[in-house]
């Protein structure tokens, strides 16, 4: 790590806002030395409670996050917010508008709001988000809120970097709830029916409740709620505390009704978030989640690194454009090209193996 980064790290740990802001920029820019910086940050993380908030556009996410931040501040806790907006796939430009709704806490520097947008690479934003969370955690934020539009796999990956995920469902979206089922239902630890002063609230709550009951009574056995990943052996975490009946060993997704514009229901929402946090700790699911997250981070980093290495190999093989043209001209096919590009790498690895058996 160079001297500038050393200073940056020291200033961030001291609590200098500018240093935190600059560190997040370095993370976003993939600036030289950012990896060493995050490695150093790691030792100072693990204290913050990370909350993910997602929902369709216009569901009231930013307004609710604003009220959440305000309430946490009243309770004397510091807050970091990472607000994610989509960027144009054509120009890379973006208008990051979530800040406008963050009106209750302006002028309070202990609420640190940072807007981020995707910058191209596959899975890059979820890595950058996770790293930005690390930076805020090391900075000393008690609560870190990640806010993102729940529109696809990318957003789901982002929001899964949180310990607790709240999904906002506006009332009257009966059929929308159906479409939510596939992707978003499984990731919700808490459902929030926001704009609960509008008609259709009762029906939406009812529909959600039926869905949750169906889910916990059905073949999924509720296991989708305490393991972040269906592929994990999440069953172990549920029985971890069976000898202590006082503690909750399973989690049933609660439904909270809020009116974010006037703060109704925000306290109940915070209570549920705290209850989920307690459940995570008591059941051992938090440690399990952290482990899965680390595994995912290692995989993503390796994938990105190998990808970068292969870019150079691809150039040597004639560049992607020429190779694509060759495929289009019928001279070769993508599989052959991939094999050819990879073969020197494979040779190197094979040689390594013979050297270090």
């Amino acid at each position: 790590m160079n001297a500038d980064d050393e200073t940056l790290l020291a200033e961030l740990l001291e609590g200098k806002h500018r240093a935190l802001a600059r560190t997040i920029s370095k993370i976003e820019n993939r600036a030289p030395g950012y990896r060493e910086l995050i490695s150093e940050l790691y030792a100072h993380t693990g204290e913050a409670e990370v909350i993910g908030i997602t929902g369709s556009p216009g569901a009231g996410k930013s307004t609710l996050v604003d009220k959440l931040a305000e309430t946490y501040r009243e309770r004397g806790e510091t807050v970091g917010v990472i607000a994610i907006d989509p960027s144009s796939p054509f120009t890379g430009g973006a208008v990051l508008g979530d800040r406008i709704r963050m009106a209750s806490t302006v002028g309070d520097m202990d609420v640190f709001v940072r807007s981020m947008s995707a910058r191209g690479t596959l899975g890059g934003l979820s890595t950058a988000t996770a790293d930005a969370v690390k930076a805020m955690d090391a900075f000393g934020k008690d609560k870190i809120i990640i806010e993102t539009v729940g529109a696809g796999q990318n957003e789901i990956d982002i929001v899964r970097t949180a310990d607790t995920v709240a999904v906002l469902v506006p009332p009257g979206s009966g059929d929308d709830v159906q479409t939510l089922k596939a992707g978003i239902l499984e990731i919700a630890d808490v459902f929030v029916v926001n704009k609960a002063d509008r008609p259709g609230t009762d029906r939406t709550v009812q529909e959600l409740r039926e869905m949750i009951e169906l889910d916990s009574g059905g073949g999924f056995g509720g296991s989708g709620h305490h393991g972040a990943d269906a592929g994990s052996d999440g069953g172990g975490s549920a029985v971890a505390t069976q000898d202590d009946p006082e503690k909750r060993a399973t989690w049933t997704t609660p439904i909270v009704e809020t009116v974010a514009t006037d703060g109704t229901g925000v306290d109940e929402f915070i209570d549920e978030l705290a209850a989920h946090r307690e459940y995570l700790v008591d059941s051992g699911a938090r440690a399990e989640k952290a482990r899965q997250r680390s595994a995912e981070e290692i995989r993503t980093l390796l994938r990105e690194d190998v990808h970068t290495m292969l870019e150079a190999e691809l150039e040597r093989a004639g560049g992607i454009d020429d190779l694509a043209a060759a495929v289009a001209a019928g001279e070769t096919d993508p599989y052959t090209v991939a094999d050819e590009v990879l073969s020197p790498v494979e040779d190197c690895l094979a040689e390594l193996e013979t050297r270090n058996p």
Partner: protein
Amino acid sequence: MSSEPEQESIRCLVAKVGLDGHDRGAHVIARAFRDAGFEVVYSGLHKAPEEIVQAAVQEDVDVLGISILSGAHDTLVPKIMNGLEEYDAKDDTLVLVGGVIPEEDRPELEAEGVSAIFGPGTSIEETIEFVRENAPDR
């Protein structure tokens, strides 16, 4: 890994400060900046100078564009500049002012650290070009 490609993007804050409800110009600029490939944070209307400073510092923007049509630029802009200085953000933020700024007020704003002032009739291309050329290299 050193060979990893950098993914830099110019970050801008488009800010409306004070009692001034005229935001058409700010919207047009925000859009144009977006289409130029910049990341734009828009402040919303009626922001106090401290709020602008808070946003500029936390978002670590390269460019701060302040839109003022109320005539209060000679009180509001210095407040913003002082705030930026307080957080060590003044030196490496390109500060632009857009709006109706009388000729005789310009030297004072420039002395405060404003890099350019764009009055009525400025073309969008000109503004974007200026930002591309002058955005701070950090």
